């Protein structure tokens, strides 16, 4: 795309025409960005960047066989970040005008001056080459051109299928798409424009039995692609299975607490990896930047290269270059090119997710390119990369066949982890008992818990690449004010030995 596409040229602000308010002109994005950079350079900043973003989001949500909400959002604005005397300042506005840009540029500089007054250690940025590029999400069908009627019909049909199952009392189904048009420019000379897409669909069924209720869910991954993700998914074939399993789940027996072998499916593992590997590998957390909210990390810098995080089977790789994944955006919000690197190699903790500021603090000369903001109004912070579990050589049947008494877990359920990412607890969306190498029947209310490195050291088998699946996250909470991070986690099935399992109920 060319910068400036997506800016609608209309007349003056409807309030300003009579009440002297915001917008008097209709400049192009490059004009706004140049004005901001000129202002920053004039103020003598050490570094400055400008992001102009127009995010279009479409959300269609069905509930209990009706379309409850269709909402199209347009979220547009500019964020200016400066480094002045070794301290940060940031200002942002949804008012895109030639009058507003100098105000927020000056304010960002003033704020940085305030930050500098309380500085102990000056911020320095790791070197990054200047980039001039244009990034476009490859897609066949633009999700915003697909008629709404087609989408609402699909959701209503899915919910109808779900309710054909006796005992189902509630259903939900939704489709989501987002387009981000963005321009990034910096005082170093980088100029990158983006036209990014992301798409996802899901549904669920809730069954009621004997005073209990349980929900079974289905989701596509969130991927950077077009509507072909939705048309390529056979929702109507999945709906009867999901509804049947919702009733099977609510009627299933509970199990005794104790130690079980676990075989976890890729969707379930995406959350386990996210919480127990992704977050502790964020270097800003390890350095205390998130101590007041998201927490710190047990993976402290002194442990890099000498801490056994998992068994020799465990290789966790950050890959922000894999096509279609959420963090594969070409460049991060520091203007650093996306990369691929190891977090855990042969079970040893070896690498962090970093940005240009914190990379230097562990003597890495270049950022890993994991600095992201969730909108024009947010300042970029270190984010989990697309961290995935490298595949092994087994089939799923082979993993199951070596389990005498265990549990097979699919999908996401309850999840919680301490602020240093040691003590975790996970549920799941569906559970099956494994007896003598075979999945026998569903069970319910399963919760497993453990200590992160003990858990990953109990991994003794990973399925091959044919089992690999990807799942995206768009609501990863971090930062103050809170931001939603986007990343994809890929894995095949994996087996863990003798994990502590408890019943998920108040009687425990």
């Amino acid at each position, binding site marked *: 795309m060319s910068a400036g596409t997506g800016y*609608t040229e*209309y*007349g003056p602000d*409807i*309030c300003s025409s009579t*009440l002297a*308010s*915001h917008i008097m002109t209709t400049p192009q994005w490059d004009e706004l960005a140049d004005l901001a950079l000129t202002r920053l350079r004039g103020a003598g900043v050490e570094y400055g960047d400008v992001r102009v973003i127009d995010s279009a989001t479409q959300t269609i949500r069905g509930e209990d066989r*009706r*379309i409850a909400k*269709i*909402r199209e*959002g*347009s*979220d*547009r*604005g500019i964020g200016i970040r400066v480094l002045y005397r070794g*301290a*940060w*300042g*940031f200002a942002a*506005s949804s*008012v895109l005008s030639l009058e507003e840009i100098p105000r927020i540029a000056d304010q960002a500089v*003033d*704020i*940085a001056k*305030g*930050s500098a007054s*309380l*500085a*102990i250690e000056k911020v320095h940025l790791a070197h990054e080459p200047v980039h001039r590029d244009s990034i476009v999400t490859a897609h066949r069908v633009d999700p915003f051109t697909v008629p*709404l009627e087609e989408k609402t019909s699909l959701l209503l049909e899915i919910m109808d299928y779900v309710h054909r199952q006796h005992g189902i*009392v509630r259903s939900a189904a939704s489709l989501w798409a987002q387009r981000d048009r963005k321009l990034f420019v910096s005082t170093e000379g980088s100029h990158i424009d983006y036209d990014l897409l992301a798409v996802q669909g899901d549904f669920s069924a809730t069954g*009621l039995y004997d005073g209990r*209720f349980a929900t079974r869910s289905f989701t596509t991954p969130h991927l950077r692609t077009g509507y072909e993700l939705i048309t390529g998914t056979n929702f109507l074939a999945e709906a009867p299975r999901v509804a049947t399993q919702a009733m099977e789940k609510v009627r299933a027996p509970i199990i005794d607490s104790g130690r079980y072998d676990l075989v976890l499916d890729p969707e379930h593992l995406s959350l386990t990896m996210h919480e127990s590997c992704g977050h502790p590998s964020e270097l800003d957390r390890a350095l*205390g*930047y*998130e*101590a*007041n*909210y998201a*927490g710190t990390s047990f993976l402290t810098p002194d442990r890099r290269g000498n801490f056994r995080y998992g068994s020799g089977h465990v290789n966790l790789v950050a890959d922000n270059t894999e096509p279609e994944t959420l963090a594969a955006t070409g460049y991060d919000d520091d203007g650093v090119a996306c990369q691929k690197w190891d977090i855990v190699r042969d079970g040893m903790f070896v690498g962090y997710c970093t940005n240009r500021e914190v990379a230097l603090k562990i003597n890495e000369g270049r950022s890993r390119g994991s600095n992201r903001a969730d909108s024009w*109004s*947010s*300042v970029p912070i270190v984010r989990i990369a697309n961290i995935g579990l490298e595949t092994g050589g087994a089939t799923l049947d082979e993993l199951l066949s070596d389990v005498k008494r265990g549990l097979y877990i699919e999908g996401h359920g*309850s999840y919680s982890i*301490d*602020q240093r990412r*040691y*003590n975790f*607890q996970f549920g799941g969306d569906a559970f099956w008992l494994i007896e003598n190498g075979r999945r026998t029947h569903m069970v319910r*209310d399963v*919760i497993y*818990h453990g200590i992160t490195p003990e858990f990953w050291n109990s991994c003794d088998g990973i399925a091959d690449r044919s089992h690999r699946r990807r799942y995206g996250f768009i609501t990863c909470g971090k*930062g*103050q*004010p809170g931001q939603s991070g986007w990343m994809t986690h890929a894995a095949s099935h994996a087996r863990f030995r003798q994990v*502590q399992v408890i019943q998920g*109920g*108040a009687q425990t």
Partner: protein
Amino acid sequence: MTTQPSKLWPKMTGWEEFHFLTDFVLEHSSGDHTSLTLYDQHGGTTRFANNQIVQNVDTRRGSLAVTVAFGRRHGTATTTDFTAGAVQDTLKRAEHIARVSPEDPEYLPPVGPKQYLSLPTNRPETAVAGPARRLEYAREAVSQCKMENLNSAGTVSSSLTAVGVAANTGLLAYEERTEARFSLTVQADDATGWAAAAHRSIDHLKVQERTLTAIEKAKRGADEPKELEAGRYTVILEPAAVAGLLSWMLWMLDAKSFDKGTSPFVGKLGQRIIDRRLTLRNQPDHADLLGSGFTSDGLPVTESVWIEGGVLKQLMYDRFTAREHGIEPIATLESPCLSGERPAGSRVSDLIRTTQRGILVTNFWYIRTVNPTDLTLTGMTRDGTFLVENGEIVTAVRNFRFHESPLRAFNQIDAFTAPAEAVTSETGKLLVPAMRIHNFNFSSVTRF
């Protein structure tokens, strides 16, 4: 409610501008029903860690949502661009969505004109507090921690938001709301202490007092924490920890789920669900709560009783479910206050002094549902967990994971204090007592 537009630049959308915007949208709309919602916020956050500022932001974000309905077909479009063309475009998008949407059997037209409580939601001292005031408070907290050779991390934030709701039914509501927040985590070696505040007035954050509280907790935990076995303990939950458990109860009061049988409160309306001494009220005019005059639907907020003498009296109704049940007016719950008869005192220390053996919990973290049927929750203790013996704090202990339902725990209450301000990173602001609870289930222990 404030009707005077702010004098700040960039100029906030004031009452007259919102009125103008409403007329513009309604005049151009072809819908049977048209409504619009305004959020125009100017605010910022100063964030510090390792005793210096790591993030310092100031943001202006205006947002307008337009909803159009033709019969029972409806659609919503939003924009952050208030130019005439963009607003028209937003209206056209909403009209298009509504035209092609299937009929929604639960659609209801927007509410008509209403009378609202006039509340002092806009505090001028917060509205004019910019980066300089936030920096001043950050410096105060950091300086106190540095004097004690402790490490601090926290935030100071302030904002002014213009909120408006209007529709062609005659609905027209506008309010300016300020909010200021402070939170601080103090680190002493491996131990942490924490305190937080939220208020309409930035003058009421009590930064110095709360910084001292966090420092004291961190220093108490600085010695090697003792590891106790998981199990059932008597606990003293400080107000923030009580707020964490109570908030999950309140979020599950949805009446539609109740009707469908997918609520933990099925069969419990009109029944005693918590200790009979406790009553939960909505108190929108309480000076220490973040009350507002109206909801996002344009409904007036109400003073209401939700739990009385431990008995569940009220559910959370959406407008459709309320109509099905003939409920009018709909009770709202933005400003919860849980209070009880015969409190054991006003401070947490009043509970500590009379405890033979128990665990003092400053706060919970990462609370999530484990079992929605009986509302079993899990989460971790955080930022100050101590062993109390014979009326005194004797040592810090390693943090526990809990596995417990508030519907069970709040029936095991031995004593409680008068309600106090409580706000956490995962809840809104509430007034709740500290509580001493027996047989609270800690299911595992972590490494620190």
